[in-house]
């Protein structure tokens, strides 16, 4: 009996028998890639030439002055090709798909960034591509749906369950058990059955490895704290990976939604509402009821309202290797506005959670302390959601005029 992919009591591979050979193949391809320096080199070259890596580490002078506390640096994953850290993972998995000789990729997406990144990778490598997306997320993230389709992917709105990310994941698994001979499921975050958590974290570690070198070059010392938002947890694990052996505090910020006490949130590690469970092929903390049925989650950001969380982060939570906080929708909008006005940077709503968490703590730190915030993605995709929240009258007029033109 094999026991692979465990992080303390979390992880594993709770798979239907039908998928066991497919996962055996994936584990074997990943294990061989991981130990082959040539593969990592190929991956890093691809990311440098295609995705614009290394992404900068930007000193946020105005925010630093505003809070008059720690020096604030921003790791700019938004400057990756396709506008988010998601590119790191999909390009890596794309290289593995080529090694396996498969011709089709499928993916789930919440905010749409992983879907766009996957469709981009499929176009570059010449794979057929199908993206599953909850119907509610299709409504929230239409611009990303548009781009996925233009890139040649088929976007399938998922109408089952709660019609968000977890339901898109279930649907992608259903496709995979039927088509695994030709198809690879490019899971978008460090969740799911082994080897996905380890594999996604390994590709995303490029963020933290770069950030560590950059801060050493700029400041000649390590940061005191690093902040990242946590949905599934891929960008957080990517940033944390650079500092695991260092005296650096790792802070993950989850979606506090309408508030932890309201029940309308997606805080699995920073609230007491979640419990250990097994679903979607792995064991972790899930927001679930006493029977083990998954609950509905809520967040202003489609990318963070996931019902589970990376088993690696669940373990880090239990061992107190990382600290987990949450930020409410309202705090996130405030952080977004401040970042835009002060720095001329538009973080994605997901990333704005990391900013909100960091802004809460920055004033409590001294001027000689340093923090890094991971800007996992850019905010263009959120224009409809943000305009709604800000109740911008000119935007409404523009949309009404545009709609009238379509009806004309």
């Amino acid at each position, binding site marked *: *009996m*094999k*026991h692979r992919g465990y992080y303390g009591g979390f992880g*594993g*591979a*709770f*798979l*239907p*028998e*039908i998928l*066991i*050979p*497919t996962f055996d193949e994936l584990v074997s391809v990943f294990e061989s890639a991981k130990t082959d320096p040539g593969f990592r080199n190929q991956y890093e070259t691809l990311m440098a030439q295609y995705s614009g890596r290394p992404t900068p580490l930007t000193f946020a002078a105005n925010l630093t002055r505003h809070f008059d506390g720690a020096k604030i640096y921003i790791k700019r994953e938004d400057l990756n090709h396709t506008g988010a850290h998601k590119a790191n993972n999909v390009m890596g998995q794309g290289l593995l798909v080529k090694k396996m000789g498969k011709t089709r990729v499928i993916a789930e997406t919440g905010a749409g960034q992983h879907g766009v990144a996957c469709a981009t990778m499929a176009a570059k490598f010449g794979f057929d591509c199908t993206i599953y997306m909850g119907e509610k997320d299709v409504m929230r993230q239409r611009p990303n749906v548009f781009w996925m389709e233009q890139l040649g992917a088929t976007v399938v709105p998922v109408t*089952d*369950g709660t019609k968000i990310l*977890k339901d898109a994941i*279930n649907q992608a*698994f*259903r496709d995979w*058990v*039927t*088509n*695994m*001979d030709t198809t690879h499921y490019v899971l978008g975050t460090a969740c799911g059955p082994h080897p996905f958590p380890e594999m996604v974290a390994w590709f995303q570690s490029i963020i933290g490895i770069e950030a560590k070198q950059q801060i050493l070059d700029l400041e000649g010392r390590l940061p005191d704290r690093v902040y990242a938002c946590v949905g599934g947890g891929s960008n957080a694990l990517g940033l944390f990976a650079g500092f695991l052996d260092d005296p650096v505090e790792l802070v993950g910020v989850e979606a506090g939604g309408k508030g932890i006490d309201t029940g309308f949130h997606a805080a699995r590690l920073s609230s007491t509402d979640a*419990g250990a*469970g*097994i*679903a*979607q*092929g792995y064991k972790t903390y*899930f927001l*679930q009821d*006493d*029977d*083990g*049925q*998954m609950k509905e989650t809520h967040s202003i950001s489609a990318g963070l309202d996931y019902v589970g969380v990376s088993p690696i982060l669940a373990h880090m939570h239990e061992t107190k290797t990382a600290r987990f906080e949450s930020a409410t929708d309202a705090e996130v909008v405030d952080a977004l506005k401040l970042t835009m006005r002060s720095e001329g940077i538009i973080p994605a709503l997901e990333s704005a959670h990391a900013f909100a968490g960091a802004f809460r703590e920055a004033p409590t730190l001294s001027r000689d302390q340093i923090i890094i915030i991971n800007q996992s993605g850019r905010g263009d995709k959120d224009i409809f959601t943000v305009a709604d929240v800000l109740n911008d009258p000119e935007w409404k007029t523009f949309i009404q005029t545009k709609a009238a033109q379509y009806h004309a």
Partner: protein
Amino acid sequence: MLESYIRDKQKQKDLLLMTHIVMGYPSFDDSHAMVKHMVAAGVDLMELQIPFSEPMADGPVILKANQKALEQGATVAKCLAFAKDMAARYPIPFLFMTYANIPYRFGMAAFAKTTANIGLTGAIVPDLPMEEGAEYLQAMKKNQLSPIQMFSPGTSDARMAQIASIASGFIYCLARKGVTGAQTDLSDDLAQYLARCRKAASVPLAVGFGIKDRADMDFLAGRADIAVIGSETIRVMEKGGVAAVRDFIQGLSRSA
């Protein structure tokens, strides 16, 4: 013991029939009527599915049934009470079918003990492969229950031997890749795969996924021991009501 029941029944029939219901769909009253009609029509074993919010291996028909049952208030406690009632009323073996999180949250040991106490004979948990199931397997064994194992067409001979070594009751052979309820091509490939299953395991073989009519039953007779019909009974019920299920099952039931 489940296996001896199956062996006994085989003296009367060349292919036994196992059916499946999602408890609480469309209601517990309808679930009871389904069981009653199915037993009267000659079903030999039955799976009682405890609905789960993320039924990963199920196709659209059973997925929808799971969701509706939960929306209408099916809880684990209600399902256990229903199963206990069915096992007391009807003289066939009943097995639970569900996903790993249900027994995990209940407590594996407590789940197995309760399953035995209410008179069920085993359980089918598709997302609990042998590598992850040590505690479950142990608890089931302790209570003389059959934790049904699975073979799929992609399962290697070596793995089939491993699975067979922990099997009890019967082994559920998936007729094809994919989720429940889609069409299955009954072909030479399937016959060869079933021959491979037979070689690997001494316990009876059940075949499911896409089995839906008399022709499928004829194909399986002699190649397997139990045919499993899941999604098709739900489709029949949705179209013609519970009584239509009885006629459907009667049309499939065989004698030796």
